[in-house]
């Protein structure tokens, strides 16, 4: 605001702006300023200490030449894909079954959703014990009489990433269930009644009317789950520590390791920029479609 108009504004008019001003300043510095600083770091030659020079694309070249980065990216893809698909399917089916005027619905819902209240560190710790290759599920099944049963995914380089999927799904599928259930409760009963009168069976009604009607819910759930997947860090640290070796590294753990334990700040910031790009690639189309919908409503 320029000086000439300031005196004409009374304190009363200025007050609302003053109230949001701190948040504005904080957002400009700590979100946008920091994002720019981080982008700059990724173009610098920083190693142990941040250096604000210009080194071009060196860090990105190093990143793309790093096998560990590609393992991390592949793991994120495997984990993200399975985590999202399984959560969506489980969430949808649990919600549909729960929507059949079930007795004790509240209690069951509470049970499905409680893992969402836990820290990923707690979830990781619990599943690390359950999946323990000696004393965990393997022992349990062997004691039941299946002597040759082996379940060593946690320490198996090829399978360890799937243990992250299991724990992640356990934690987050209840949330999709809650979203879907809210969506199902919003479906107009009259449409269903009309379809029944016309002789449609319930499975057909679900397939043709109800599930297609849940599209916005799926969309939101998809965005949130993608976001959880790209950011996932704590779960992997607690469950596998990125191991065995670095078989379960994901971009978030890669970024942490290189930035804070290996003194490769430039490389770490380049990795985080790639994570930002991934989020933008998913969020922008989402925001775009949201805005278009809003405009159509007017």
């Amino acid at each position, binding site marked *: 605001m320029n000086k000439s108009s300031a005196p004409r504004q009374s304190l*009363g008019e200025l*007050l*609302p702006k003053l*109230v*949001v001003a701190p*948040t504005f300043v904080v*957002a400009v510095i*700590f*979100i946008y300023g*920091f994002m720019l600083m*981080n982008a700059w*770091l990724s173009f610098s030659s920083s190693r142990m200490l*941040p250096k604000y020079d210009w080194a071009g694309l060196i860090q990105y070249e190093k990143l793309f030449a790093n096998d560990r980065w590609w393992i991390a990216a592949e793991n994120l893809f495997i984990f993200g894909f399975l985590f999202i698909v399984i959560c969506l399917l489980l969430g949808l089916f649990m919600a549909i079954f*729960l929507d*059949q005027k079930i007795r004790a619905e509240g209690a069951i819902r*509470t*049970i*499905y*959703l*409680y*893992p*969402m*209240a*836990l*820290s990923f*560190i707690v*979830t990781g*710790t*619990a*599943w690390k*014990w*359950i999946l*323990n290759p000696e*004393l*965990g*599920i393997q*022992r349990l099944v062997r004691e039941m009489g299946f002597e040759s049963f082996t379940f060593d995914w946690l320490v198996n380089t090829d399978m360890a990433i799937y243990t992250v999927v299991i724990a992640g799904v356990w934690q987050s599928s209840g*949330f999709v269930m*809650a*979203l879907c259930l809210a*969506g199902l409760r919003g479906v107009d009963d009259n449409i269903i009644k009309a379809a029944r009168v016309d002789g449609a069976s319930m499975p057909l009604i679900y397939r043709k009317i109800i599930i297609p009607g849940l599209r*916005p*819910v799926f969309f939101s*759930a998809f*965005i949130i789950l993608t976001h959880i997947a790209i*950011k996932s860090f*704590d779960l992997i*640290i607690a469950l596998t520590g990125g191991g065995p070796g670095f078989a379960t590294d994901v971009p978030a753990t890669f*970024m*942490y390791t290189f*930035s*804070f334990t290996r003194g490769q*700040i430039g490389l*770490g*910031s380049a990795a*985080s920029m790639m*994570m*930002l790009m991934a*989020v933008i690639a998913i*969020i922008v189309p989402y925001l775009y479609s949201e805005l278009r919908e809003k405009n159509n409503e007017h």
Partner: protein
Amino acid sequence: MSINRVLVYCLLGCAALLYLMPLVVMVITSLKDLDEIRSGTLLSMPQALNFDAWDKAWGSACTGVSCEGLKGYFWNSVLIVVPAVVISTVIGALNGYVLTKWKFRGSNLFFGMLLIGTMIPFQVILLPMARMLGFLGLAGTTSGLIMVHIIYGLAFTTLFFRNYYISIPSELVNAARIDGAGFWLIFVRIILPLSVPILVVSVIWQFTQIWNDFLFGVVYSSGDAQPITVALNNLVNTSTGVKEYNVDMAAAIIAALPTLFVYVVAGKYFVKGLTAGAVKG
């Protein structure tokens, strides 16, 4: 009851058992001694109620170099959570109030700008923030963590309150303004009394987010200032001597109890917070 309904109940019941299983295993394991753990299975019951592992997890287990259990870190988390939740919620409420009832040119743009703050992966601000905390002399302290949690919580709390206040009719506010009521009086007398549900949502959301945070905790705190999630991870990964699974599980439950308690007491609001951003408000 038709066969279909029996099937539905069976499926729902089995799923419920599967979801409960990890918690049950955690509790059972925490009550056994190490011999019972080695000779039994995940689901074999403890022979007697034995709270030694809990004692140790709380007061004497090793979390890295120090061996004083989780209690100090538990209180660290409390000391971080309380001010961070209160301050971010208050500022969020005021922001939401301005953004809906005292709109100005550019206020929508400001909101959009903040909204992006709910979506960025925090990895992109980790390094500059570390430098800033060092610059402010807050590196490795709980005060630094409180600041970080307030800053990156603001986008969420503002979103909650803005989306809630937008449904309060502006006529209420306009009428009060004509009667001469000012910014603060309207907020305190009209808006706040209507805000209880969203206050609960915001407090619960921030509480769970901050209590469960690990990323900021592990990067920005050290030694005695660490929050409980970091201490729990250290405790589980401290590899001196015998692996004490019972102590690990007791520690994990201790770290989970506050958020579980909130969830059980106020689950309805918890779900609302989770879905507030997702289902259009």
